[in-house]
């Protein structure tokens, strides 16, 4: 009977080979199947080890499929109009068979996909899989990451609840603050009005309403997935063309070795999603109400890092310039990292000693790995702060502390005068200046063999002292720029010291009160000098690395790398300045909305 069935033309036209496990059928299964055909027929054994890839790329793709399927099902129940959308979501939750579960699946799969895509990027970076010939595919990958975030963001509005409306408002407001093309941003072009700026383009109106909902719906369900598929095809195709990054080990057949792993990973992901969707309900708040702003209004978690940055920088810098720099910087990585080592392996960690502390040190790509991981950690730290540590009025609350709308910040913030802020930034930029080999040779020839090192150390410590002076001198002496009436009598330091609980400043103030001005100011001066010198010493310790980097990369690439690095560390520095010293902006040019 089965034999007869197998002889029919219908059977043969569907299954074009038999199922015996022979090398020939293994090949046929991959060749003869349009879906599996994406794979090569044979791959190196080590390339598909789970502990190498963790299945992250495949999982990203699988989650995209899950999202497409659940999304299509959800589209049957959803009308993108303000009067229907919220009710449709309620219907999904309450009356559609498995409707709530379906929505949960879609929601949680989207979150999971963002996480997995980011982890995939980290994995690719750590194993050096972006290095030639795979540079271009890394760029495509970054585009896919951005699209994943944009897909999540557009989907966020659709339930039309308070959470959605206000999260999207935060994002749309960032668009309104774009330089040149935003009606609230700096350097506005003359013809830009709220009726034709970037926010209008994004939300289809001056307020977030029916047009925005329709626009986000089309973007979310059609436009972005369409583009996503195109880039996804390129991405997968490039993986085929560029081969896997790890080429060790004997070659094995893709069927069954790779296909079975993919299947298992997909199954595992589905089980996780099933459980997640059964246990945790997707959030749905009250119906969107443009007149009632929840306090705090938070962006979706993957954008909370940016929202947290809004505290420290002008909206157009935190919301437009920094994300652009991050994206372009990510794309530039393969073109800036010329180190050919470390392809196809995780960084080998060497145990070293930094003073008394044991540290693990990536031996082959110390700079690249450290900087990249630091950036990722910083990003997630900002997200953590935004998600768990911010309450009403974006005040700081420790996780678990209960929020109170009556809590008022006692941190009074002042701007540094621009002159001193400029000096501070100049000192900071000087930390990044290298000493090229040529210059070293010349100095060594003229002043003796130890001179370059001494000079470099002196320069670093000097610029460290400059920074510290630029910070402390205005704190101690400059008149209060916000209150010119008092400026003859009070220094900014005094104003801050009385008015702020910024820890460093109030500690200084108390010190002066305790031991008298002469002694106190001397002590503060000593402290400032020590801090500056320490900072300089730290970067002097990195001088050799910088010089080598400069010699390897040449001036242009070095400038880009060091600028990106300084910006990244600068974000941390800015956070410290605000929280410790109560400094709002280092440089403030209100005429250009330029406040950093």
């Amino acid at each position, binding site marked *: 009977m089965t034999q007869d069935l197998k002889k029919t033309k219908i059977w043969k036209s569907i299954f074009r080979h038999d199922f015996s496990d022979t090398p020939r059928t293994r090949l046929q299964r991959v060749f003869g199947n349009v879906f599996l055909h994406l794979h090569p027929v044979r791959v190196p054994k080590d390339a598909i080890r789970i502990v190498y890839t963790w299945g992250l790329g495949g999982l990203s793709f699988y989650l995209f499929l899950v999202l497409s399927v659940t999304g299509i099902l959800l589209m049957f129940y959803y009308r993108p109009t303000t009067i229907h959308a919220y009710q449709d979501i309620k219907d999904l939750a309450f009356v559609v068979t498995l409707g709530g579960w379906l929505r949960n699946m879609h929601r949680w799969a989207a979150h999971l996909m963002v996480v997995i895509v980011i982890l995939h990027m980290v994995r690719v970076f750590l194993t050096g899989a972006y290095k030639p010939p795979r540079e271009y595919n890394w760029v495509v990958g970054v585009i896919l990451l951005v699209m994943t975030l944009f897909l999540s963001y557009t989907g966020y509005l659709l339930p039309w609840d308070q959470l959605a409306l206000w999260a999207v408002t935060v994002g749309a407001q960032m668009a309104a603050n774009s330089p040149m093309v935003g009606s609230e941003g700096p350097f506005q072009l003359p013809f830009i009005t709220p009726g034709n700026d970037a926010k209008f383009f994004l939300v289809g109106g001056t307020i977030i309403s029916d047009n925005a909902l329709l626009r986000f719906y089309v973007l979310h369900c059609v436009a972005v997935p369409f583009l996503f598929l195109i880039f996804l095809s390129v991405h997968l195709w490039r993986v085929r063309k560029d081969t896997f990054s790890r080429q060790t080990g004997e070659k094995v057949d893709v069927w069954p070795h790779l296909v079975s792993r993919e299947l298992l990973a997909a199954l595992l992901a589905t089980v996780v999603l*099933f459980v997640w969707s059964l246990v945790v309900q997707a959030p749905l708040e009250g119906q969107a109400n443009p007149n009632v702003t929840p306090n705090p209004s938070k962006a979706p978690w993957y954008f909370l890092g940016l929202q947290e940055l809004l505290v420290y920088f002008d909206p157009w810098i935190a919301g437009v310039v920094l994300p652009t720099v991050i994206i372009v910087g990510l794309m530039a990585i393969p073109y800036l990292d010329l180190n050919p080592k470390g392809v196809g392996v995780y960084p080998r960690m060497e145990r070293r000693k930094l003073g008394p502390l044991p540290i693990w040190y990536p031996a082959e790509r110390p700079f690249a790995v450290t900087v990249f991981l630091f950036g990722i950690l910083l990003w997630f730290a900002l997200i953590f702060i935004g998600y768990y540590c911010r309450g009403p009025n974006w005040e700081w609350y420790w996780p678990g502390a209960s929020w109170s709308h009556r809590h008022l910040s006692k941190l009074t913030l002042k701007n540094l005068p621009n002159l001193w802020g400029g000096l501070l930034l100049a000192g900071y930029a000087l930390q990044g200046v290298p000493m090229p080999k040529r210059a070293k040779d010349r100095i060594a020839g003229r002043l003796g063999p130890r001179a370059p090192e001494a000079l470099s150390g002196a320069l670093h410590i000097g610029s460290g002292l400059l920074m510290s002076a630029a910070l402390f001198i205005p704190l101690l002496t400059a008149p209060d720029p916000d209150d010119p009436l008092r400026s003859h009598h009070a220094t900014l330091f005094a104003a801050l010291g009385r008015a702020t609980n910024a820890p460093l400043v109030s500690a200084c103030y108390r010190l002066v009160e305790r031991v008298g001005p002469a002694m106190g100011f001397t002590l503060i001066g000593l402290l400032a000098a020590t801090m500056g010198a320490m900072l300089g010493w730290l970067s002097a310790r990195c001088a050799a690395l910088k010089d080598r980097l400069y010699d390897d990369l040449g001036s242009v690439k070095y400038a880009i790398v060091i600028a990106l690095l300084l910006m990244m560390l600068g974000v941390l520095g800015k956070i410290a300045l605000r929280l410790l010293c109560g400094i709002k902006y280092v440089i403030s040019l209100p005429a250009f909305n330029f406040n950093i």
Partner: protein
Amino acid sequence: MKRVAFVALSAWLVVLFLIAVGLDATQEWTVYQRRFVKSLNRDERRGLPGGIQQIQVKPLGRVDRCTTCHVAIDKPQLALAEQPFTAHPGDYLTWHPPEQFGCTVCHGGQGLATQVRPAHGEITHWEQPLLRGPLIQASCLKCHGNLEEINAHVPLLRQGIQLYDRLGCAGCHTVHGFGQTVSIDLSDMGDKPWQLLDFTFVEGDHTLAQWIDEHFREPRRVTPGYRMTELPPGEEEIYPTFMPNFGLTDDQARALTVYMLSLTAESLPAKYTIPQTPRVQPAGYATAVERGRAVFQKYGCAGCHGEGGLGGRKNWNAQLGEEEPSLVYVKMTYDRDNLKQLIRDGRQPVPRRDPARPRAPSYMPAWKDRLSETELDDLVEYLLSLYESQVPQPAPVSEPAEAAPTEG
């Protein structure tokens, strides 16, 4: 190994899917329906609809699924004594046929929901929780302008409206265009989203009704402002609310709460609403003083100056002992024209007691566009009469014994 994993994961998947289907098939409402059907005999079961029930009321834009569990609400012959299987009390359903009105337009709650707590709207993210007990009277005012005719059904609402007039709330608050603008407009108080309210000092549930209720009892506990010690240095203190503590009883506070909840911006279609019966203006007062008392009452002067102008309401950092002035002694300080001018122009800002502290929150608004000249005349008559009526007058001094020297 892989095969085992594959089989195990697939089995898990099937089990989880079955669990999902099972949970979906045994939702709360199915349990209630089954319990109800069990209580019936076979004849009664016939023709009883099963599954999710919903009343769609197009004109009101509402879909109410309450009858999914409250199965016997319009079938008194089948109803049981326990919730949710009771029949609707009274004749209300005859007057308000469910297919025209639904449930939530009167009762509040979340009509779309099919689980108990969400359906009753007693969850964080639903703005109209079920109006339990007498609170439901708040809904009647949505349509019924003719409150006099349904008097017996809305005792609390009536009491609330009367209290609102008696206490002089209109002196500071506006409702539907009538009243002063010293404090907030109350026209849509019943819609106020909880996100705009501070529940820090509310002891009961975090609902609008509870907030209003506690605020009526102890306004300064619920909105205490900020003392200097709570504020960053250099900030001005924020006074507690100047809403007076009227010393309301529980019933009175509840009555006023019901009235507040009844004030919504929701506009129902014209065919649902009954226009207000024109109020009969009491006419033919005997004296200007009595007419003046009516003016005093109508415009809510009592809200700040106290009933009968006795004063005693707090006004932070105002001169005169941080209180709103009592009106008993106006006769001593003002003549007719001065008093009229003061009422016409109001007094804002109020002189401060301590110039370093922020300005007093309450002030005398200008009345010149609100009071007619005759009303003003009557009011002034009334105010000038207060001294005699409110202050215990010393007994008339008896004539001195030695009057005129006797002749001769």
